[in-house]
């Protein structure tokens, strides 16, 4: 697939933005500066990036508890995200949502979600709205291997297919639901196999190869826009960190982690770009430096921002 240089560079930037943003969060969480839970996306950057690069600004996504990558890939603002995660008034949700609930309706982000499997039905609704309004938009539902076992996810797959909705189910199979390995929670090896039960295409891709993800999702999006209904794209990937920051992660062996870290999606993509001369070493360095500065600016913005006033407690309960 011939992608424009602009798209490729954009994808490269996005992956780095997710990586550097999350590494910063990791630091701040360890320093005790972030309240609540933080679920990092490190190692899975290619999935969100490859997927969202196939979408327009008005296409919609539903995200998960591990949502930072999805939000950034869909165009989420670093500063507003950082401020929200720090619980500040200037954050995306005025400090009321935190890491697990960030949303940006202008970018079609229907929110990260604290409920595993909560996104599937919402994505059905978003796709239904697109079809209803004949808008040509599609919806993407990001969901984990663990979430694929939730009834809501299976119900969403069924309904989307029965109603031929413009919906792409993007499964991020990182092998674990918290401590539970996939082999203990389901009998199938490929979650994509389940697509057959709903008469929709199901494909497996290397989730650490951003181009492979992008190609498969682009295909699925095309189908969806043509009114041919939903697809399921399973991206095999791996979560580098524990389930949440602070998880000792004793249920996985280091060899497995090392094996996957060797398949780091970033250097893989970078090598391809350098080889094809889409990018020079110098340009790559510049991009990273710029993102480091952007992330620092986001941190400064968050830290300078006030906490929400107690008077905001009862605001926004009703419209």
């Amino acid at each position: 697939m011939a992608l424009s240089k602009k798209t490729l560079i954009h994808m490269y930037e996005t992956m780095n933005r997710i990586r550097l943003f999350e590494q910063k969060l990791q630091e701040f969480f360890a320093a005790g500066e972030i309240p609540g839970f933080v679920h990092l996306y490190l190692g899975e950057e290619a999935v969100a990036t490859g997927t969202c690069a196939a979408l327009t600004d008005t296409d919609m996504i539903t995200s998960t508890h591990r949502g930072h990558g999805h939000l950034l890939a869909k165009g989420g603002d670093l500063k507003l995200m950082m401020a929200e995660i720090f619980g500040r008034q200037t954050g995306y949700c005025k400090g009321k949502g935190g890491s697990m609930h960030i949303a940006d309706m202008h970018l079609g982000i229907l929110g990260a979600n604290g409920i595993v499997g909560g996104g599937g039905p919402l994505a059905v609704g978003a796709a239904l709205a697109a079809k209803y309004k004949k808008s040509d938009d599609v919806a993407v539902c990001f969901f984990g291997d663990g979430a694929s076992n939730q009834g809501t996810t299976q119900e969403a797959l069924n309904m989307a297919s029965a109603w031929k909705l413009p919906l792409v189910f993007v499964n991020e199979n990182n092998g674990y639901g918290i401590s539970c390995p996939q082999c203990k929670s389901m009998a199938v090896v490929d979650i994509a196999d389940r697509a057959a039960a709903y008469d929709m295409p199901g494909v497996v891709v290397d989730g650490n190869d951003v181009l492979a993800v992008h190609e498969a999702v682009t295909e699925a999006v095309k189908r969806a826009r043509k009114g041919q209904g939903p697809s399921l794209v399973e991206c095999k990937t791996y979560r580098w960190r524990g389930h949440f920051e602070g998880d000792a992660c004793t249920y996985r062996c280091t060899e497995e982690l090392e094996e996957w870290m060797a398949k780091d999606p970033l250097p893989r993509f970078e090598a391809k770009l350098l080889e094809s001369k889409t990018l020079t070493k110098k340009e790559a360095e510049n991009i990273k430096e710029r993102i480091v500065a952007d992330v620092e600016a986001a941190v400064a913005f968050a830290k300078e921002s006030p906490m929400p006033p107690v008077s905001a407690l009862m605001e926004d309960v009703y419209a």
Partner: protein
Amino acid sequence: MSEKTYLQALNEALRQEMERDPNVFILGEDVGQFGGCFGVTQGLFDTFGEERVMDTPITESTIVGAATGAAAAGLRPVAELMFVDFIGVAMDQLFNQAAKMRYMFGGKTTVPMTLRMPQGAGIGAAAQHSQSLESWFMNIPGLKVVIPSTPYDAKGLLISAIRDDNPVVFLEHKLLYGMTGEVPDESYTIEIGKADVKREGSDVTIVATSQMVYSALEAAERLKADGIEAEVVDPRCLQPLDKETILESVKKTHALVVANEAVSFAGPGAEIVALAAEEALEYLDAPVKRVGAPFCPVPFSPPLEQAYIPNADDIVAAVKSIR
């Protein structure tokens, strides 16, 4: 007898019941090797193995339903949901299946199932991981609702819940897991539906549950300085509710404040003040007061979350407004 945390007390209750009765088993997400989201099932997998400490897929509906089915078929499951908030996914299996089975079948079956769920705010977990939902369960005939505040109560009540022939919703508070107290090493039970007077007093009754028991005790100490002796009653179970103990206290003190962390409107306190209004109105010298959470979801940001959670100040203010 030795000093134990609430978490250790629960763990010990599970261990002792599993040793006593081979039909007792545990199921839930990450309850095995991982030891449960907050660590309550820690070590049980090593002792009892995966046949009795079962990691399930992420599927609350089937966790609750399977526990119900297994209970009806003769076992004594103890199911865990990581957070009470996830009961939404499993509501039908709890409300329409577990709670209704015995009655609908004309008493032909029992459902000896225990469903453990942590609730409550205070750890920055935001709106979908911080609720206190006891009033949902209190409103469903067929369910028992246990809500212990101390390590001692937690152990005795969990053992009773496991031995009970009904579906019991067992509500723990995340912030209580680290609380310590004296807990006997041996197995013991506490009658489900029996309140405990946590502090005696003559001037006002504070009925408090779960984590709010500690706020009520703190409030009582502060009120003492102003010459007000508060009696703190911990119902420990909301269904069945120990009406006698509450009414006895109100008849003695002639004033009632109810404190809970759940949303006040249509919350658990509503039932308790209605009880006093119906059955002890003539003993009341002052209006009843409820202390509870405001009518909004639990916010994430720490200052908002702290403002959300009712505390000892709120209880003191409520008591002073009537005494």
